[in-house]
């Protein structure tokens, strides 16, 4: 019986093509918006979580708190104009000197002045005042039995001079332990040219791909970091996070500004990770060497630990807190899981808000559908009388109208699903780089497909419920008498 009613409903939809399509269009627009937003949103979440998974959920970061706050703010203040340019071809030193060698933080000025000369008033003082917060990782491993590995990654904003180009750049200072244990945390720490550090006693530097490109560095070149010459021994391959780095650069993170700011305030842990995993624009100096020759210039360091498989992350964090106290250091342990949860929560909230806005379009489509069905009942009153005169039950008339409106909802939903999927695929191509998650694909799984189709049919049927009920209650004699 239902099949017969389905056929009749299809006939009705087909016989009112223009109006049916306009009604379906209303549902289609709403479903398209919801599908595109949900699939892109879920895709972004998955991509972000994958990045955390790549780093490893057994990692606990120990980010220093408070010690560098003032310094972070000072570095952030280096680029009040928000300009992106950092490098400039070096002019003859004389011309800069003659022009006063005015400091343009963030943009390499080509000056050969010393760092303190180039610093605006108070800045050098702030940098040197910053207290190193590095934990003794060997001691930490003894203090916290749940930890199997620990390493330190320092991050500094240092004046750079290649002879032809100068300015400020982030200098990361991983320890040898760190490189051995946590290269995955750095993401893309793959040497494309040259080799890794070969000596703890020589001034060696490894350049990130873009840093090397923009500074025009080759293996064997000399780079002055804070006026101390370092030899380029390796150049990294471009990482997958190129797009992310692009975003970072726009936000000033690339120059270390965002990283230090957030490490020092401890407010936004995601930027800590983004700073860590961005190798494109950094120079790398072995921590053991940096602490010797760049001593007193340390801005910030983060200790990274790996928890033994099966051990409780929470217990490990508690033990780390105790260890930090015992070492009289400062810092707060943050697990990768916590960071991931925080970011996922924020992304879910954004996704929910956007989907809610899109759902308004869906409700409007539903109202349009109700209007169409109500009009159809008025127009088809005589037909309802005919159906009843040949033996249709009230319930059959109601079901017929419900199927009619439900089918229009379903067709709108199916077409919206297809269009939304296409839009989300196009959208990810455009949004991926700008969202800073690199390439990602929208998630269109069986739940989304099934949910959208079921919801669309339910929306259609619900919108048609009242008109259908009215139709079913019509007196057959009155219905037959209508013109």
């Amino acid at each position: 019986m239902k099949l017969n009613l389905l056929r009749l409903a299809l006939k009705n939809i087909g016989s009112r093509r223009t109006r049916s399509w306009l009604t379906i269009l209303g549902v289609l627009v709403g479903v398209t918006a919801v599908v595109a937003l949900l699939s892109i949103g879920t895709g972004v979440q998955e991509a972000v979580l994958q990045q955390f998974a790549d780093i490893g959920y057994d990692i606990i970061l120990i980010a220093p708190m408070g010690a560098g706050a003032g310094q972070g703010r000072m570095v952030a203040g280096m680029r009040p104009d928000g300009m992106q340019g950092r490098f400039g071809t070096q002019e003859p030193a004389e011309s800069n000197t003659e022009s006063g060698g005015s400091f343009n933080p963030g943009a390499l000025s080509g000056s050969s002045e010393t760092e303190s000369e180039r610093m605006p008033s108070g800045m050098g003082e702030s940098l040197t005042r910053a207290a190193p917060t590095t934990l003794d990782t060997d001691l930490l491993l003894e203090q916290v039995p749940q930890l199997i590995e620990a390493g330190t990654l320092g991050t500094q904003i240092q004046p750079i001079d290649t002879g032809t180009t100068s300015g400020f750049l982030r200098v990361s200072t991983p320890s040898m332990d760190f490189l051995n244990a946590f290269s995955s945390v750095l993401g893309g720490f793959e040497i494309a040219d040259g080799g890794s550090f070969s000596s703890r006693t020589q001034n060696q530097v490894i350049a990130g791909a873009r840093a090397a490109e923009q500074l025009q560095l080759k293996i064997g070149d000399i780079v002055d970091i804070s006026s101390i010459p370092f030899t380029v021994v390796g150049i990294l391959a471009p990482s997958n996070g190129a797009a992310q780095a692009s975003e970072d650069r726009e936000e000033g993170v690339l120059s270390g500004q965002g990283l230090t700011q957030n490490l020092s305030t401890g407010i936004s842990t995601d930027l800590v990770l983004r700073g860590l995993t961005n190798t494109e624009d950094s120079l790398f100096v072995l921590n053991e060497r940096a602490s010797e020759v760049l001593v007193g210039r340390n801005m910030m360091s983060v200790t990274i630990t790996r928890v033994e498989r099966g051990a409780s992350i929470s217990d490990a964090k508690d033990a780390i807190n105790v260890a930090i106290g015992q070492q009289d250091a400062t810092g707060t342990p943050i697990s990768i899981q916590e960071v991931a949860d925080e970011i996922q929560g924020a992304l879910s909230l954004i996704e929910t808000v956007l989907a809610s806005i899109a759902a308004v379009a869906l409700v409007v489509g539903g109202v349009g559908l109700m209007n169409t069905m109500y009009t159809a009942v008025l127009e088809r009153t005589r037909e309802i009388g005919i159906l009843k005169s040949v033996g249709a039950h009230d319930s059959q008339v109601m079901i017929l109208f419900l199927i009619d409106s439900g089918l229009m909802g379903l067709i709108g939903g199916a077409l919206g699903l297809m269009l939304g999927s296409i839009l989300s695929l196009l959208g990810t191509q455009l949004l991926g780089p700008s969202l800073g998650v690199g390439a990602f694909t929208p998630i269109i799984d069986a739940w989304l497909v099934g949910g959208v189709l079921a919801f669309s049919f339910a929306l259609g049927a619900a919108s048609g419920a009242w008109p259908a009920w009215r139709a079913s209650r019509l007196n057959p004699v009155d219905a037959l008498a209508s013109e």
Partner: protein
Amino acid sequence: MLVLQNVCKTYQMGDTQVHALRDVSLELAPAQLSVIMGHSGSGKSTLMHLAGCLDVPTSGQVVYGGLELSKLDSRTRADFRATEVGFVFQKYNLVSNLTALENVSLPLLLRNQSSKEARALAMESLELVDLGDRVTHRPSKLSGGEQQRVAMARALVNKPAMILADEPTGNLDTVTGNRILELLRDFKMDDKLVLVVTHNPEIAELADTLVHLRDGRIESHLTQEVPV
């Protein structure tokens, strides 16, 4: 046997009560052509609606084969119409977006008959009214006579116990009208009850039972010998 006992039907039109039927008692037998005549507003169509279970009386009883139709609920009345009654209306009352075949199939489809079976029976019924070659046409592509024959085919497709026809020849030319009357007579010969509401005196001449209504009351009730 269809029996109406002291049937009254009153409609409320705003503040006014309209008495469409007043204390009507009537017996209509199978294998007879019963004709109801009267002026417009005399209650002819109301009587037909009550007989066909499309409506219920305000008071009185409508009984068919011992079953009191006036006491049935909405669903059972619908079942009764689906199985026992075939309606033929003056305005044909075909569903405009369905073909002739689909219109005739409609009562069967609503009774949960398979589509294939319904189509076969509908085809048979359409051939009976000489429309076997017009099955795919929609009502708008059929003449008035053809539409009335489609309506006739639809009324017959269920093989009902009674045919109730409201001015079945009202909009038709003589030839087509005669063809419709022939079909009704054939149905009567099949031991079925046929009730025709009409103004047409030519149909009255064919009636086994002729009832005249005036202002909702039976003015005359004649049983006459007519050649069949």
